[in-house]
């Protein structure tokens, strides 16, 4: 994660390039994601997602 923390405007860049489909998928499954992590498929790609904190 990278943020211009000393600036009033805070833009946040992320490591994985996220398509709209990927974001919608994460929104749809967000209740099932926990600290242990989940693996899911979107199209031909497989992703691992884990909740932090």
């Amino acid at each position, binding site marked *: *994660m990278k*943020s211009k*923390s*000393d*600036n*009033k*405007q*805070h*833009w*946040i860049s*992320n*490591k*994985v390039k*996220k398509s*709209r489909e990927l*974001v*919608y998928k*994460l*929104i749809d*499954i*967000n209740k*099932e*994601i926990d600290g242990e*992590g*989940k*693996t*899911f*498929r979107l199209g031909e*790609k*497989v*992703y*691992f*997602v*884990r*909740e*932090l*904190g």
Partner: protein
Amino acid sequence: MAFAVSTLFLFLFILPGITFKRAYLSSAFSRKLKFSGVLDEVFWALFPSIIMHILSYFLLLAAATAFQFDFNLKQLLSIALLQQSNEGYGDIFVSYLLYCTFVMTVSFFMGHVCRKIVRTLKLDRKFKLFRFTNDWHYLLSGEFLDFPEVPDHPEEVSFKLVNALTSVGSQQMIYIGELIHFTLSDEGGLENIVLKDAKRRLLQDDLSENRYYEIPGRYITIPYKTIININVRYFYLEEVTEDYGDEELL
């Protein structure tokens, strides 16, 4: 008259502390200065002032040696702070003013330098003493994850999901999407958040199927004044290269 001038000189003496504090807290996420009581304010004005005077003293000593000019701080301060006659003040007023201007300039730069050091060394995340006043910055940037009491690290965050309950007219709307941008206000709060690929639904549709509907366009700005509450979740996301059986996947 002597008392009034002496008070003015004393104020000029503690002004570098106030300058230092203003410069140190001048970034967007710490701009709001809260009044924390007379004793506290005096302490936080006086303590940095003394340090700035000491630092400036050594800088001026070094400069006096390098550029061959006379500098006697002891004499200057003893006349400025302890003088009984008005004539004595007149003699050193310009010198004292120049000295205070120099100390305030040093304090201004030191305030900014100290903030940079605190931010670079992440001291504000590790110690509450150094933490800045605007909590929104830590929460929305993910730096909150670096606090000692919180596991994980902000460097791992690759996706921030925000649920924002907002008030739209007489109805309450929930927006859910990826947080990509936020703006802090001058008052020390939050001005707005920007969500990417967001969906929304009415709060009353909580139990219905397919309750979210998509928003045309990729980015939506939500003013903070319309937000009732906000839920932020941090996710680590990576693309997996190994083969997985479909039965294991969501």
